[in-house]
């Protein structure tokens, strides 16, 4: 499963200023707003901010381009694959995640201070922000809607096993579930268990199977039958 790829390649938006068109996605939860009034409201704020010199229009495009094309879960997948293949790197990651992640060039906003949590056969870590939507942008990009939604934020701390089951992840009673509520300016990255069947894989091949959801800790990475021909990108 390579559920992180869409965050980079499959969704090129028009970066121009015609934001009157909305994509007609339909969703069954309260966290998708009625588009048109909000589109008008945001357009008014943007026009006003530009007119008053509060923002540079080129900066707006730079911000969107950064999170649409440059920062996403592939960064985190690279960190995980390195940790799986380099024991010294893994030790540095678990001791000082901020520095170890910066070694690979991933620094910046919403990743200033990082903590890595190792999953094992006995311990399963999962991350939530019950108070807003804190998320490690530098290694995972912008969060998916479900991570920011009331269902996940309310239940992850109360019923983590029920939440995990919704993601298809069923854990035995012998496994300890550790939930981490990101209430501070620290961002958590889960280091998933390296799946069986990957002993002779390269770092690139491994990076290709690390999913965003496994790095949030709502899923595990399934055992692999054979090495992929080559991980994408």
């Amino acid at each position, binding site marked *: 499963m390579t559920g992180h790829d869409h965050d980079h390649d*499959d*969704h090129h*938006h028009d970066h121009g200023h015609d*934001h009157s*068109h*909305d*994509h007609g996605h339909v*969703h069954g939860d309260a*966290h998708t707003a009625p*588009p048109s009034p*909000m*589109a008008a409201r945001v*357009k008014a*704020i*943007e*026009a*006003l901010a530009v*007119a*008053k*010199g*509060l*923002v*540079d229009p*080129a900066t*707006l*495009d*730079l*911000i969107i381009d*950064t999170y649409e094309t440059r920062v996403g879960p592939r960064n985190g997948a690279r960190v995980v694959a390195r940790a799986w293949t380099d024991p010294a790197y893994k030790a540095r990651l678990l001791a000082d995640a901020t520095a170890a992640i910066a070694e690979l060039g991933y620094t910046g*906003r919403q990743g*200033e201070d990082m*903590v890595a949590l190792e999953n094992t056969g006995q311990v399963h870590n999962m991350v939530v922000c*019950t*108070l*807003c*939507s804190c998320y490690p942008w*530098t290694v995972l990009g912008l969060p*998916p*809607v479900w991570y*920011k*939604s*009331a*269902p*996940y*934020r*309310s*239940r*992850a*701390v*109360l019923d*983590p096993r029920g*939440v995990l089951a*919704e993601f298809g992840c069923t854990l035995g*009673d*012998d496994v300890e*579930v*550790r939930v981490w*509520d990101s*209430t*501070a300016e620290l961002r958590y990255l889960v280091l998933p268990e390296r799946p069986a069947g990957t002993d002779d894989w390269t770092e690139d091949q491994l990076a290709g199977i690390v999913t965003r959801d496994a790095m949030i800790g709502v899923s595990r990475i399934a055992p692999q039958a054979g090495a992929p021909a080559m991980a994408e990108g």
Partner: protein
Amino acid sequence: MNGAQDLGGMMGFGPIGIEADEPMFHAAWEARALAVTLAVGFLGRWSIDEARHARESLPPPVYLTSSYYEIWTRGLETLIRRHGLATSAELETGQPDPAAPALPADLKPAPGPDAAAAILARGSSARRADARPPRFTIGDRVRVRDINTPAHTRAPRYVRGRVGEIVRLHGGFVFPDTGASGAGEQPQACYAVRFAARDLWGETAHPRDCVHADLWDDHLEPAA
């Protein structure tokens, strides 16, 4: 603040709503809302804590029926008005009003794309070297103070009054509860505190499970 943002442990919101092949933005305006919120934030007129408090101060029915970027946008409008960057009428029309009060005299110029790229790459750490030394250490049992304030707090309701154990010393960080209100950063120790799931939720919780929250010195008191 006991607002609608403090969701931990609530029931009734239904399934998680996992979306296959989710797009990064569900509408073009969401991308613009993200960008304009960050870009106006680059002017440095408010902290991330004040911005969070502006969002969580939305009336609960509004908060709970708004999308993520709608909450951001409503919060941004509050901050823009509060800090004298625009009036309500200007926000309504999208046009500067010649009769509006002048912008703050000490306002910095808006960063261009190169400066913005550097800001994003650098981030803005809340870690502070001059923080108060920690009162607790790993293994200490602590109780979360029962904080009920209309101001901002990062101590969620579900841990208040509960006893947990310090499991990580994160170091010194800005204290959001004061950082949000203009009462200063008051940097102090921040800890990961582990709570047994059964100590939070009772007998229906799994006996092996636990929940951690990151809490600051001023949120905690010693527990026997």
